[in-house]
């Protein structure tokens, strides 16, 4: 238990490996990256998460040196990397399309970067074999890229970009082309490799589950801006905006207004005429308009009104989404507002206690939700 938690971003004097200082990138009139500042630390597994077109690839290409920032600076180990061309940067990129050289064998693809360094033959062979072992590709060394499967191609691309032992490895949607099962396996493989090699990884993805699985920190992006940069659990449990809460996982958003009669560290929230006010943790002045975000799995479902719970509302089940391990209930409140609640399916489905058109109580504690200002 004595192992210290890896969290260099909480150490004020820690030097980042990468520092974005108000970096912008415009294409003509269009702003792809908007005054973005960010620190990424050594040995981090950093995930960039955001919808398609929000500037993730552009950020990677700036790091790799294929695009120059329109304004701002990027420091790698404290050095401005603007004048360093891509072939001289201690940064390697795994391309979204893998970009394997079709005329070279798997072995030669992996050796490509090492040959450019002019590495001695026996050292080179040893390094390539090590990479093949690491990515479990020994059997395919002599094959050409068109003779191997998608998952194997992806591993070749990874091995090739790792071979030069870069300070920073950029992975642009590396698992995008894989099916779900292979994807999950590969995610753990990636984490394993990252741990073994100690390389700093920056991974781009638009799959929030993937970001949550692999990353030490996640940056949620939208339209060229960072909305929140935090650890996966904080992103999930304490989103800083409706955008982030909505982007990561499932959430109920309730628009509400703070009412005057609050208590210590919690506020009463009006959320519509005739509805019983809700309670939530937080300190806000009366009259503030806020959004209350509650994850469906934090809401309990019961037939009778539970006692001693801060919030309870009554409604009718209109839909049940059975997902195997969990079920999501879509519940319509008396005035038409819909809420989602999730419960784990610990029993067989035939013995499930709720079904369509059942009237149920939804309840949650005052700490279950989070109040968001934007």
């Amino acid at each position, binding site marked *: 238990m004595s192992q210290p938690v890896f969290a260099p971003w909480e150490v004020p004097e820690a030097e980042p490996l990468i520092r974005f200082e108000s970096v912008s990138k415009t294409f003509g009139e269009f702003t792809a990256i908007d005054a973005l500042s960010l620190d990424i630390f050594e040995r981090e597994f950093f995930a960039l998460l955001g919808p398609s077109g929000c500037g993730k690839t552009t950020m990677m290409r700036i790091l*790799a*040196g*294929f695009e120059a920032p329109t304004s701002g600076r990027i420091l790698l180990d404290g050095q401005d990397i603007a004048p360093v*061309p*891509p*072939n*001289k940067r201690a*940064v*390697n*990129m795994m*391309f979204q*399309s893998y*970009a394997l*050289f*079709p*005329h070279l064998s798997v072995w030669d693809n992996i050796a*490509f*970067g090492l040959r*450019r*360094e002019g590495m001695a033959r026996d050292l080179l062979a040893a390094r390539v074999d090590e990479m093949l072992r690491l990515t479990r590709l020994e059997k395919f060394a002599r094959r050409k890229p*068109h003779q191997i499967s998608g998952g194997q191609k992806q591993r070749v691309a990874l091995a*090739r*970009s790792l071979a*030069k032992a870069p300070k920073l490895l950029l992975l642009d949607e590396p698992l995008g082309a894989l099916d779900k099962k292979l994807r999950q396996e590969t995610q753990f493989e990636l984490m394993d490799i990252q741990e073994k090699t100690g390389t700093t990884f920056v991974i781009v993805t638009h799959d929030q589950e993937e970001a949550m699985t692999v990353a030490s920190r996640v940056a949620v992006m939208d339209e060229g801006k960072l909305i929140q940069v935090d650890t996966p659990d904080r992103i999930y449990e304490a989103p800083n905006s409706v955008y982030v809460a909505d982007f990561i996982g499932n959430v109920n958003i309730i628009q509400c207004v703070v009412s005057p009669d609050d208590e210590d560290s919690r506020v009463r929230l009006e959320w519509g005429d005739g509805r019983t006010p809700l309670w939530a943790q937080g300190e806000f002045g009366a009259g503030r308009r806020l959004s209350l975000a509650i994850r469906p799995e934090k809401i309990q479902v019961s037939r009778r009104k539970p006692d001693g719970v801060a919030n309870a509302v009554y409604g009718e089940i209109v839909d049940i989404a059975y997902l195997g391990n969990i079920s999501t209930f879509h519940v319509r409140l008396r005035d038409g507002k819909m809420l989602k609640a999730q419960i784990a399916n610990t029993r067989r489905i035939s013995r499930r206690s709720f079904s369509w058109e059942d009237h149920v109580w939804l309840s949650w504690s005052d700490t279950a939700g989070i109040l968001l200002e934007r």
Partner: protein
Amino acid sequence: MYRRLLIAVPYLWLLLLFLVPFGIVLKISLSDLALARPPYLPQIDVSKGWEGFANFLSGLDFENYVWLTGDDLYWKAYLSSLRIAAISTVLTLLVGYPLAYGMARAPREWQPTLVMLVILPFWTSFLIRVYAWIGILSTEGYLNQFLMSVGIIDIPLKILNTNTAVYIGIVYTYLPFMVLPIYAALERLDGSLLEAAEDLGSSRAGAFWLITWPLSRPGVVAGCFLVFIPVIGEFVIPSLLGGSGTLMIGKVLWEEFFSNRDWPVASAVAIVLLLILVIPIVLFQRNEDRAREAER
């Protein structure tokens, strides 16, 4: 039934347009020169039935081929044709590759126009275009007039009726056959491969030699064969632009047919030329097959 019919079409085509003419030429090449019409013997005498056919067969021999080995004009012409074809192929490649490369790197919306421009010369007659070169290259031609007016030269250059003019004509005429396959190969090239090469530490020039060049090689090989094969038998360009020193087998063939009216020898020359061409044609087919293989 329908499928068989469909498959039969190309074979029928091959039979009619290649095998039958080839058979006729082969037969003539085995015949003897005669003052007759047509100017060779023997002919099949159909009225005598089997006997006529047997007589006909016994009249055929390889005399003309033996004749070809006897006169060094022929093998010199073959060799010279091969040499001119090889040199002009290299020249066409040197001009065509940068052209194709530039086309492939031009903005997307420009590329169809550029391809059009490469094909455009085909819209006018080949003969007229070669004649136009006479006007440009002759002693009083536009090129010499221009060079003298600028003051680079005092005496007009003698280009027309030399091998230089032949090379210029061939490169000009066959350039599209070189440019188009190379362009097709370069245009397919995924730009991220070059970025990957740079990312892995290679320079721009290095990325060209290590990635672009090998990946465009099937196009280069195809282009070279498309130039080399027809140029060996080329007749119009050497006879219009070349001089007395330009020795090409196409010209020899023409003279045997039309000046000497020696159809049997001319046919033997043509058959030997075909045999020579079989080698590069087979190699070309192998290259095409391999390129198709790599694409899958």
